Structures are given as structure tokens and as C-alpha cells.
């Protein structure tokens, strides 16, 4: 994606403004590029681009050809070690493991190391009637705090002409006419001293009493707490036209976790062919988060060993807050099996959450399932090729009080309350200060009087979001289980979807209110087929494939959440569409002749080589009413293919995974297809193929410096085929146990593994990875060597 500079004049341009600017740069003294061209506005031809001796007025940055991704990237090294010991007997069992994980990331200086210790023990008393034990887990994670998002974005948009370093050994950085984003190499270097320390203890103690045969009473008390400590030094810098003479040390501590108490009573009963199994239980969870931070400025030395809060001399700040919720559940379950032929189970849960309204804290969620093992019936047993056949039906309701479909939190801990907060001041760099302090006396500095502002509107009728699912399934095995598989059909109806929609601005700050809003339906089919082959005694293989597809649509949309989803609030609503739908304009190619421009619907900013949008309502003008649902946001189907092979001590495993028929919104097009939407950045090479009268077959809009046609609007221009097939995993192993039998090794397997080694994507997808169309952290290819030992 690197272009040293754009040869923008090798073909005629349509944008007069661009030409006029280029012409003007002849006389300017600090525009970076100068152009040797024929000065013909009708048929411009570029002879060469003249680079200056220096790109900055201070004459410290020579034109470079920096490959920013090379500057920030490295081959990562991941190490993972695990040792486990276990011991068992009549009086108890113990398990002990130690693990160490070390990941030097693909961005330079990124580094995570993690150590885990697990200890599980249990003790039996009274001949096994009472079992007491514990599970104990500790985790330590140490992370380098490199601002990876900014680094990757900086590498994407920083111009290659910018050098990493100046001629005087300082940092290179953006020069006139360039985007105001940081030199990503500097971000890495200036942050590599910053680390976080995370510790987590997960443990529980349990007692299991076998009251009478088959009846167990178990109580478990668990603790799951973690702490995160960060100390960061922000150094002063000069980097191109960006600079900050101040430094800052920030220190923060976050403490959060759960206390969990679970009590269960289970009873197993065998009555000949009938097997019964009962469970009754109760669980309570209490979650708590508290945190605080401090920061100071004015450090005499910019060294992490010095950068403690005490050493700072100015701008002494601190802050902190907390939050909590609790859950209380009661549940019961009964399983019944008759002759391994008929299987039935019933579950009833009653879940309570502190997040809901006074009268709706509890939700009741029943479930039931039926199974019929046909292969146990005589009439099937006659069909010798069938080795297993089972029909299943399940119905269940579940409640949700946490996360939405997209994984975003849908309800705050205190959503039932109307709340105010004292917000002294917030960081106003990119978003407006939301603070409540004001220099009312006009003194210009010092502690200010401060007030309160509404932060949310409560909704005391909030209740559990609930999903009712019906599932029909068929499991089968053929030819003595050589072929096995399953098919499932499901219908899921979710009601009372928790959502906090945007709101009419006149309501003012704190207008956000959480609702139980609409309903949606998901239905789909999942199928799995496995073939288990044996070629010779030492030569086995299995092939397994799965395919899944689902359809989603919103089935109910009350007016209070109508505007929470894409649409126009009146005639176009998400009702009946997929909840993941994209709403926007339909791009109908480019204007390729003046006649087309003149005869099309009125469209502000239209012109030769510009995107033509469809006049969907046919009113002769392109405006917001010409939007529609341009993608349902879901793939047609997803699939996977597993292949395992073993030959004597060798084994081989392959796992392919794919997505088919998805339309993804490729945000990279802002950088690869337009010279106007993110000005001053390093554009992709696709712009070199932009439309012009002499490049008339191009589908890439003509070059322009200003997006008058608003081509950054949500439209089908950005939608691309997101289908892909990836080799997620390839593993080749060899077991040395025979060779090492002498030293009493049970198992000693060495293996070579590769993740994401190759991918097939649609040609029409113009960025690199359709799985990552939004510029998130790249999904790396990983190769690793492993050794599993057990004694």
C-alpha cells in the first residue's frame, strides 16, 4: 500500500482545481512537490516530479522513501510452555500445572508475557462420602503499552517521503500539506518503556457431600478477582510540525472481579431401564469494579525509572470511580433416559439481576428437550448400514442482561436510575469537554467551582431480554460409524432486545435511556459430516466438514427504539430487515460523459468521473430519501473442513474455514480509492488507476482534492465480496515416545504448526483481508514448533 509519490499527471485530469494548485506550486516556497509538466490544462502531461532537497522549512528532513510498515513491523515470536503434574488415588486427587507464554508481537516492541499456575486438589473422607477440594488459578500478564492502533494507522497514512529521522537525529514527521498524524516509529520508541501489570486470582473451594447413594449436595465458593496496574511516561517530542514540549506520567490501578457462591443438589436414580437425574441449585454472583488514577507533569528526566508520581512537579491530577452488579439464580433440572432410547429433560431457571427494574429483577426461563435414539429400535437395527440414529428436539428460553448481538454492552449497571454526575472536566482534544466546572470568578486558573450534569435517564421497567429457541436435530452414524454427522435446524426469537438508542438532541445531555425494544428472529441450519477412514493398521485419517447458514430479521420494532437502527425514522425502518443491515446509497458507476452528467438527477457535486448515485425514489434529485438497505450484513453461509491423518508416529492436521456470500464494508477504500476523503495521507496505488477521459474503463472515481460529491457517504461503492477461505491451522507432528521409551516417557510429541498460512479471497475485494475490513489489528500468520511431553 505504499506509493512513493503519486504520479498524478501521467494522464489527463478532470479536476481543474488540482491543476491550478499544481501550477501554483511552481511559485510557492514550501509546498513539497514541484511538477515539471507541459502547462496544458486541456491535455496535461507530467514530465517529472521534482523533489525538494528538504521537505520542511527548517531543512532537517530529506525526502525519503520510507516503507512505514517495515519500520513498525517485525516477525513475531511466540513461546508457550506448559508443565502439568497430576496424582490421584482413593484419598484424593491433585493436579498442578505451570504455564508460561511469551509473545513478541508483529508490531515492534509489542510484547506480552503471561505466567499461569493452576492447582486443583480434592480430598475424600468417609470412604468418599465427603469430598472437599479447591481449584486455584493465578495469572500474571505483563504487557508493553504500545499504542498499536495509532501505530498501525500512522503506518497506513504517513507519507513515504517523510523520513523516520531528521538529518540531525531527531524524529521525522509530517510536513506542510500532510496529515497531522504521528510518526509511528516515534510512537513505538517513545512508548516502549510503558508497561501494564495484570494479576488475576481465580479460585474456589468446594465441598461435595454424598448424602445417600446418588444424592450429592455440593457447595462452591469462588473468587475471581484481578488487578491491573499501569504506569506510563509520555515523553516530549518534536516530529515534523507536531510537537509537545511537556511530559507526563500517568498511573492507574483497576480492581475488579466476582464473588460467586453456588449450591447444588443432584440426585441420580437408576430404575432398571430408566435412568433419572435431578439437579437443583442456586448461584449468586457479585461483581465489583473500582479504579483510580493519578498523573503529574514537569519531569526533570524522561526515564521510566524516574517517572513516578512523586517526581512530577506540576499539573497534579487524580480521579477514580466504581461500579457493581449482582446476580442471583435458582435452577432445577431433571433428565430422564429410558433404555438409552428415549431421552427427556426439563430445566427451569429463575435468574435475578440487579440491573433491572424493581418488579422485573427476576426472569423465568424454562427449557425442555426430547431425544429418540432410533438406532436402538428393532426396525432400524435391521438396517445394518445404520450404526447410530438419533432425533432431537429442544426448546429453551434464555435471558440476557449483558451483551448484544454485536458483543457490545447493551445495558449499564444502573440503567434503571436517572443519574447525575459531577464531571469536573474531560479531555477535550477530539471531543467536546463534558465538564461541569467553570471559571465563574474570571481568575483564569485554580480550582474551579463545579456542578452536576445528567448522565442518563432511568427506565424502571427494564427486564430481561429473552430468547426462545427451538432446535430440531438429527445425529447419525453409518457403516459402523465410518460416516457420522448431524443436521440441526434452529429458530431463535429474541424479544425485548436491550438497547440504548441515540436520542433527539433537544433532550440534552444524559438523554440516553435503555429500553427493552424490538424483537428479532434468527433461523438457520447447521450440518456436520465426518468420514473416519482406516487404510491400514497404522494409517488412519478423518475428514470432516461443516456448513452453517442463518437468516436474521427484525420482527418487531416499537416506536421508542425505531430510530436506534439505520433508516429514516418514518418510511424506512429496520423492521423486516437483518439487524446487521447497512443503510445507504446505491452507487451506480461513474459519470463518464458530460451528457450523463447533464441528464442525470440533480446531485450536488456531480461531475465527470464522479460516482453516480441511484435516484431510488425517482424524484429527480439525489438526497437522503434515496437510501435503502444495501446489505444485510450477513454471509450466505460459513463452512469448515477438517482433515486429520496419522501414519505410525506421524500425524497431520489441516483445518480450513470459510465464509461465503458476505458483503463487507471495506473502509480501506477511503485510503486506496480516494485522494480527497483523508487528505494529506499516503494513498493506495489504486488511485493511480483513477478514472480519466483517457482511462475511461476505470471504476475508481476521478482524482480530486475535495470530496464535493460526498463520496465518503455510506454506499454500495464500499461494499465488496467478503468471501474467503482460510487455512486456519496446519499441524504436522511426530511422536518420539518409541524412541524415548528408555526414559519412561509416556508421550513425547513434536509438532510444527502454522496458522492462517494461506487465504483465498474474492478478486473483487480490493484490500488484503476481507475478515478485517475495518482496519483492526491484522490477523497474523503464525508458524510454531511445539513439544508435548508427559511422564
Amino acid at each position, binding site marked *: 500500500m505504499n506509493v512513493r509519490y503519486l504520479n498524478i499527471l501521467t494522464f489527463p485530469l478532470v479536476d481543474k482545481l488540482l491543476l491550478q494548485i499544481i501550477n501554483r506550486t511552481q511559485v510557492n516556497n*514550501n509546498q513539497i512537490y514541484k511538477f515539471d509538466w507541459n502547462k496544458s490544462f486541456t491535455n496535461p502531461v507530467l514530465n517529472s516530479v521534482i523533489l525538494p532537497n528538504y521537505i520542511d522549512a527548517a531543512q532537517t528532513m530529506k525526502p525519503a522513501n520510507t516503507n512505514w510498515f517495515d519500520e513498525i513491523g517485525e516477525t513475531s515470536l511466540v513461546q508457550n510452555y506448559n508443565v502439568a503434574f497430576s496424582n490421584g488415588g482413593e484419598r484424593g486427587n491433585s493436579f498442578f500445572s505451570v504455564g508460561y507464554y511469551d509473545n513478541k508481537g508483529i508490531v515492534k516492541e509489542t510484547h506480552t508475557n503471561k505466567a499461569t499456575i493452576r492447582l486443583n486438589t480434592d480430598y475424600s473422607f468417609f470412604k468418599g462420602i465427603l469430598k472437599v477440594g479447591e481449584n486455584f488459578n493465578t495469572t500474571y500478564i505483563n504487557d508493553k503499552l504500545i499504542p498499536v492502533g495509532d501505530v498501525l494507522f500512522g503506518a497506513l497514512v504517513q507519507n513515504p517521503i517523510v523520513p523516520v529521522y531528521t538529518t540531525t537525529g531527531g524524529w521525522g514527521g509530517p510536513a*506542510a500539506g500532510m496529515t497531522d498524524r504521528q510518526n509511528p516509529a516515534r510512537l513505538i520508541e517513545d512508548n516502549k518503556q510503558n508497561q501494564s501489570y495484570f494479576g488475576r486470582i481465580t479460585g474456589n473451594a468446594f465441598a461435595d457431600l454424598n448424602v445417600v447413594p446418588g444424592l450429592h*449436595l455440593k457447595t462452591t465458593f469462588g473468587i475471581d478477582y484481578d488487578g491491573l496496574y499501569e504506569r506510563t511516561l509520555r515523553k516530549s517530542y518534536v516530529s515534523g510540525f507536531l510537537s509537545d514540549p511537556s511530559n507526563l506520567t500517568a498511573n492507574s490501578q483497576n480492581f475488579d472481579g466476582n464473588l460467586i457462591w453456588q449450591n447444588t443438589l443432584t440426585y441420580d436414580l437408576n430404575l432398571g431401564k430408566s435412568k433419572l437425574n435431578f439437579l437443583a441449585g442456586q448461584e449468586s454472583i457479585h461483581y465489583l469494579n473500582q479504579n483510580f488514577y493519578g498523573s503529574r507533569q514537569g519531569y526533570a528526566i524522561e526515564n521510566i525509572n524516574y517517572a513516578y508520581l512523586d517526581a512530577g512537579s506540576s499539573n497534579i491530577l487524580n480521579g477514580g*470511580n466504581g461500579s457493581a452488579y449482582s446476580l442471583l439464580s435458582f435452577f432445577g433440572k431433571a433428565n430422564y433416559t429410558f433404555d438409552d432410547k428415549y431421552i427427556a429433560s426439563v430445566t427451569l431457571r429463575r435468574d435475578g439481576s440487579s440491573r433491572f427494574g424493581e418488579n422485573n429483577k427476576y426472569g423465568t426461563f424454562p427449557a425442555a428437550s426430547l431425544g429418540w435414539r432410533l438406532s436402538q429400535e428393532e426396525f432400524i437395527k435391521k438396517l445394518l448400514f445404520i450404526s447410530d440414529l438419533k432425533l432431537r428436539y429442544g426448546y429453551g428460553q434464555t435471558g440476557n442482561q449483558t451483551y448484544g448481538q454485536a458483543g457490545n454492552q447493551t445495558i449499564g449497571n444502573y440503567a434503571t436510575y436517572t443519574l*447525575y454526575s459531577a464531571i469536573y472536566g474531560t479531555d477535550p*482534544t477530539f471531543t467536546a469537554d463534558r*465538564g461541569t466546572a*467553570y*471559571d465563574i470568578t474570571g481568575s483564569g486558573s485554580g480550582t474551579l467551582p463545579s456542578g452536576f450534569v445528567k448522565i442518563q435517564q432511568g427506565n424502571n421497567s427494564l427486564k430481561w431480554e429473552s430468547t426462545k429457541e427451538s432446535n430440531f436435530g438429527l445425529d447419525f452414524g453409518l457403516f459402523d460409524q465410518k460416516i457420522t454427522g448431524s443436521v440441526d435446524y434452529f429458530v431463535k426469537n429474541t424479544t425485548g432486545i436491550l438497547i440504548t438508542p441515540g436520542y433527539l438532541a433537544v*433532550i440534552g445531555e444524559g438523554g440516553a435511556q435503555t429500553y427493552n425494544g424490538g424483537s428479532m428472529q434468527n433461523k438457520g441450519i447447521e450440518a456436520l459430516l465426518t468420514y473416519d477412514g482406516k487404510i491400514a493398521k497404522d494409517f488412519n485419517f478423518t475428514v470432516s466438514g461443516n456448513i452453517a447458514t442463518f437468516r436474521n430479521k427484525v420482527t418487531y420494532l416499537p416506536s421508542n427504539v425505531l430510530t436506534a437502527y439505520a433508516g429514516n425514522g418514518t418510511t424506512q425502518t429496520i423492521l423486516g430487515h437483518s439487524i446487521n443491515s447497512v443503510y445507504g446509497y446505491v452507487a451506480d458507476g461513474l459519470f463518464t460523459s458530460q451528457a450523463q452528467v447533464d441528464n442525470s438527477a440533480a446531485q450536488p457535486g456531480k461531475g465527470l468521473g464522479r460516482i453516480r448515485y441511484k435516484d431510488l425514489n425517482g424524484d429527480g434529485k439525489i438526497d437522503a430519501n434515496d437510501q435503502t438497505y444495501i446489505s444485510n450484513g450477513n454471509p450466505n453461509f460459513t463452512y469448515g473442513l477438517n482433515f486429520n491423518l496419522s501414519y505410525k508416529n506421524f500425524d497431520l492436521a489441516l483445518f480450513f474455514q470459510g465464509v461465503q456470500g458476505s458483503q463487507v464494508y471495506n473502509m480501506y477504500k477511503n485510503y486506496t480509492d480516494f485522494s480527497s476523503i483523508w487528505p494529506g495521507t499516503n494513498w493506495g496505488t489504486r488511485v493511480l488507476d483513477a478514472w480519466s477521459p483517457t482511462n475511461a474503463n476505470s471504476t475508481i472515481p476521478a482524482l480530486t482534492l475535495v470530496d464535493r460529491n460526498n463520496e465518503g457517504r455510506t454506499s454500495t461503492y464500499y461494499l465488496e465480496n467478503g468471501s474467503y477461505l482460510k487455512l486456519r491451522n496446519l499441524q504436522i507432528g511426530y511422536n518420539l515416545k518409541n524412541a524415548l521409551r528408555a526414559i519412561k516417557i509416556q508421550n513425547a510429541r513434536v509438532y510444527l504448526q502454522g496458522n492462517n498460512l494461506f487465504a483465498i479471497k474474492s478478486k473483487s475485494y480490493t484490500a488484503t483481508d476481507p475478515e478485517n475490513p475495518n482496519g483492526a489489528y491484522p490477523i497474523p500468520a503464525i508458524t510454531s514448533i511445539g513439544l508435548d511431553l508427559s511422564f
Partner: protein
Amino acid sequence: MKKYILLITCLLATVVSCKKALDEQPQGVIASDQLNTPTNIDKMVIAAYSSLGNENLHTSNSLWPWGSMRSGDAYKGGDGVGDNSEWNDYETFVTNQNTNSLTDQMWAQLYNNLARANNALLRIDNISQANYPLKTARQGEMRFLRGNYYFMLKILWNRVPYIDENVPTTSYDTISNVAYTSDQLWTKVANDFRFAANALPTTQTDKGRPNKYTALAYLAKTLLYQAYTQDNKYNVIGIDQSKLNQVVTLCDSVINSGQYALANDFGQNFLTANENGPESVFAIQYSKNDGTQFGRIDMGHSLSYPMNPAYGCCWQHIPSQDLVNSFKTDNNGLPMFTGYNSKDATQVNDFLSQTFDPRLDHTVAIPGHPFKYEPYFVYQNSWARAPAIYGFYSSLKDVVAADDPSFQKIPPFMSSSKNWELIRYADVLLWKAEALIELNRPLEALPIINMVRQRAANSTSKLKQTDGSFTSNYKVNIYQPGVNCTWTQAYARQALRTERRMEFAMEGNRFFDLVRWGIADTYLNSYFASESIKRPYLSTAKFTKGRDEYLPIPLNQINYSKGLYKQNPGF
């Protein structure tokens, strides 16, 4: 057996306490009904004031992106036409659409501010004077703030939803932007200022609070705008003489209060050291070293700083060549109403070989001229970011010198804790002059305009090079009917309108003046015709009469209102 009893008791205990188990008291927050004590009501008042400074990069409460950039006084600037392209859409008008995200942001910001004022006001209304002796004064303050925000909404969008403290939040979504006519809205704004003027004390210890005269001044401004009656196409079809008479009376009350005066030097209005001086009628009080990381600084002007190492970003809000030329004075030391663009002043010598109003060097940073009155800190060509597009100038009134204690970096931006004047006394004087001229009493306006000009003429002492010589060749004279001019109503009107431009250039007023006078279309289209020769990016710019006088209602809000809000004409 005992064991079972114990267990059952445990379980029962859990069941009994299950309601309590799910009781979570909100942490670190406060409920509405706890905020009705006198102390907390006073704090709610502070929170309402706080909103005056809660701007971001793009939503300056000075309104410069709407008032200066759309007026022919300022270009957008930045690293190209596409940098903050929403502003380019404002500046060139033709591509400005109802989806412009900054229009929506500003709308939301102003209603956020209003909600704070209404919230405080409702609490004040409901407490007794006995419990809260400041009741009336605080009501006045909050209604003043509310008037200020509705005034801003009014000049930006014309017709907006009007909501006061008596409207329950649940009814907000039933109030349309067209529920009131333009004139009714003006009356509502005026009523708030009228109430405030009656409720407020004549002086305030806290410099951030308005007093009686601040409210009277804003009332004068409101009535002046209301006096120009617009038809549906935004043509000015009449000027309400009785309102003009009120404007004169109100301005006189402010003038006769004796609390205000023009600063000795024009530049004092734009220096942190002279904050809250005699000319300040109402200002946003910014601060730093105030317990926040960067200070509660003027983010609305944070993009105005040039590209030299002492600053570094982002060079927006750039004075136009037309503005620079307009500061030329003729042989009599009077402004040139026409013809000032015949030759562009750009080079150092151009500013010495012709005569200029000194306000030029208080307003515009020019290559070779000291920046912010510092002779050793000279503005250079290289401080400009995209001179091929926008020329070389930079804005001065809204920035501070890099060594000024109020300067604050907030990477990649920078700004300062310098106050921003929403009403300067000079404005009050010129409102009165304008009203008098439109009342056909131009002779009474003459001394007022001359007072402002005389101050300008006296404001040269800060404008010197290292050798003590003046940076430009300054020559400003007062209007002397019969000597250097013929002071007719028409001439006086031109003089007043030119004087307002010189005095308030880059302060966020100009576009609204043009719309008030009903000349925005002719003025701006002729500006585009002449300026686009020098700045080709303006060649596609066009002001559409009957549409571009006001912003479109944000599509977002129309959608959130489920179609209740009606779009402004032409969008």
C-alpha cells in the same frame, strides 16, 4: 438430621435475602432530587455556565465557522480543501447538505447547553426565595444563558424547537421546529433577556456572570435582529422602527451605566493579560492550571495556530485576501467601500506603500509582520500550511503568543485559556449606530462610529518592528461630513457596515450581519466572483438566495423526530 436443618436454614436465608442481594446502590453518582438544596442549585448554575466552554475543534461558541468562514472574511484553511471537508461545504455553500455532521454536532451542543440552563432553572423556580435568597438573580442568569443559546440557534437555523424549563422532558419529542414563527422565536429570546435584565444586579463580583447591563445589551442585539423583518425567501422586507427605537434606548442604558468603555488599545481585547477589561460586556471565561489536564481552554479556536515549530498545527480559519485588502484606507484615511481589491496587498512593501487601518495587524498575521505584537516573533511564509490554495495569512485575534502564560498545547492541537468576548462594548456602540442610521438619524450615529474609528487610529503602539518602526503604514481618520465625506443615510449605512467588518473581522459575526441586512446573496456572490480569481477553489462556490441564509435542519434530527421536524427551504 441436624445437618439437614442447618442446610435448609442456609438456603432459606439465601432466599429471604434475595431481594436485598440484588440491591446495588449506584456508585459515584447522584440522584436528581438530591440536587435541590441551595448549595447544589448553585452548582447546577455553574454546570450551566460550564457549557459556554464545552466546545470542540469544530463547534466554536464564537461561531467562527459559520459567522466568519461563510462571510468572505475567512477561508477554511488546513492542509487542503478536503481537510475538514464539512467546512469546505459551508464555505462554498453549494455542497452543504443536511447530512453535514458538524451541523448536527453544533445543534446537539447548543441543545445540551440549553438543557443545562433549563435544568438549573426548574430547580430555582421550585425553591423559595427564603431558602434561596439568590433565587431571582440566578433565574436571571439562567434565562440570560438560555437566551444566548436560543439566539445562536436562531441565527444559525432560523426556526428551531423552543423548549423552556416548564416543558416536561417526556414532551420534548412533540415540539416541532416550526411550532413558532421566526418572529415569535425572536420574541421568546427577547423575553428571556428582558426577564434577566429585571432580575440581575447592576454589578457582579464574579466576572463570569452577566449583570443587568449585559442582559440589556443582549436584548438590544436581539431586537436589532428582530427589527429586520424577513419574508419566506429571507428578503428583508422592512425594518421595525419601534424596535429600532428600543435598541437605541437599551444601548443608551448600557452606555450610561458608566461600567464600560472602549479599551485604550484595540489589541487589548485579544490579549489574555487584559481579560475582563472595560470593553468586555460578556465573555466566555476559559482557564488552565485549573485541575484538568489541559485546562478548560478555548478548543473552538484550537485549529487556528500556524505551522511554525512553536505551534505546529493546524492553520485553519485563514483571513481572506479580500479581508486584507479591505483594511486599505484612502487618502483621507477612510475605508474604501469599493475598489479595494484593485490590487492585492501581499508583500511587505505593499503594506508600507499604501495606507491601512491598524486593525489589520491586530487581526491578520502577514508574512514579515510580528506575530501577536512580538517583534522578534515574525510571521513567515513557511508558517502557512497550504498556501497554494489559501494564501499565506493566519488569524490573530483568537490566538496567543507561544510564550504567553495562557498558551496550552493539547497535541496535536493547541489553544489558550484566553477569554473569548461574546459581547464587546464596541458592538453595543455600533448596534446603536446601526439603529440610528436605520431610523434615519445618521448624524447621531456619526460620533459613535467616529469614536470606534478614533480608538482604531490610536491602536498602533503595539504594531511595531524591532527597530521601532510601524509594521504597516497606518492612516485612519474619522468621518468629517463636508470635509472628507457626505454623511447621508446611505453613506452612513455603508460606513457602519464597513466599520463593523473592520472592527469585528474574524470574530464570528459577519455572516449573520449580512443575513440581517438582507445582502448575503449579492455580497457573497460578488466576493466569490472576485476572490475565485485568486483562490480557484472558490470557483464552484455559490450562495443560493432563499436557502443558504440558514443551515439545514440536521437530517439526523429530522429522523430522530420521526418526521416531526420540517426541513428549511431549499435543502
